[in-house]
């Protein structure tokens, strides 16, 4: 039986751990995270034929999709530790961090996690709400698909700084270092977003 189908005997007492977990899931989200629609493990439907059973598509988005969202995706996938901030070398070694050739608006696959959820990064510029709506509505109305998308805002570096770093990095790759220190500083916030995302996914 798939893991997402919940079975519980009516006479069986839920364990304290399960109660705590259930309580944690009902806690409202922190303001920095927007989730639409609110996801619960028992509400998740497996979409047949979508990449061999991808359950949910998790999208981390930020201003340009090349600094904060790749870092969040890498934390989600376990390439970066959730406990300690990364070092500059670790950040620059990531395959999708600081990729100035990435276009805003395009969904980039970062990987698939252990629960078969696909993790994407997305750059929304200052139109995050509209891009989210386009993706959700196009999925349902244009492509007639039941694929589910969860969006998590992990923007922490100011937009002007991202813009400047991107332009500098186009001239010389060392321009990325302008934002590495900021990324490391904002590690706690991004890790909190990832933790919240995992709680919403029922991990």
């Amino acid at each position, binding site marked *: 039986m798939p893991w997402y189908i919940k079975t519980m005997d009516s006479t069986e007492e839920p364990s304290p751990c399960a109660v705590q977990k259930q309580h944690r899931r009902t806690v409202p989200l922190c303001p920095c995270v927007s989730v639409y629609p609110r996801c619960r493990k028992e509400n998740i439907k497996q979409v047949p034929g979508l990449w061999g059973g991808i359950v949910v598509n998790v999208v981390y988005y930020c201003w340009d999709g090349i600094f904060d969202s790749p870092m969040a995706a890498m934390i989600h996938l376990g390439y970066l530790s959730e406990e300690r901030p990364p070092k500059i070398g670790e950040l620059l070694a990531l395959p999708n961090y600081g990729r100035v050739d990435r276009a*805003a*608006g395009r969904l980039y696959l970062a990987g698939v996690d252990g629960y078969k959820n*696909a993790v994407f990064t997305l750059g929304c*510029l200052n139109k995050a709400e*509209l891009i989210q709506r386009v993706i959700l509505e*196009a999925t349902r109305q244009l492509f007639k698909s039941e694929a589910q998308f969860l969006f998590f805002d992990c923007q922490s570096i100011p937009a002007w700084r991202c813009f400047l770093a991107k332009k500098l990095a186009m001239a010389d790759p060392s321009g990325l270092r302008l934002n590495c220190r900021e990324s490391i500083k904002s590690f706690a916030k991004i890790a909190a977003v990832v933790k919240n995302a995992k709680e919403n996914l029922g991990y």
Partner: protein
Amino acid sequence: MKVVYMCFGRAHSSVVASAIHLGYLDPQQTPTVPELTKLPLFDVSEASDLGVPKFVGCDTEGCEIYIVGLDGCRVQAQSAIESLAAILAVPSREFLIVETLGAIGWLAKFGGFLSRQLHFVKIGRPIVAHGIIRSYDLLCELVESVKKELSVIAAKDQETGNPDHRR
């Protein structure tokens, strides 16, 4: 096959282009202002409609016609739809995104701004209708080029033996 006409607010140029495509407006004859304002979706969209594809009908070849307003981020939203299609394993030949904003002039844009952004509907709606009439030939050319593109895609699909090219 799906054709998506996109513009700024899903209120004017995409509505008229889809009406031409579906045969509600005659490409040979320039419409009058009342004919344009009688179109059911002309100058009626709200901010909440932005980003939501609206199905308006099927053409004679069976292609589904949609219209969508993408505000000032048409490039990004188009990228989002294209990457989404790749994620959902929808072949790129099964949908066509057409920007209609380039086919209309400043008068239609100004009227649209007055009507939709500032809510001066009584002033803005006739101005935008006149602007559309001025740009009507360009819109017809655009729709004609889309139809040609569709026929080329259909011919290619028939050559390659793809049975569901009109899905």
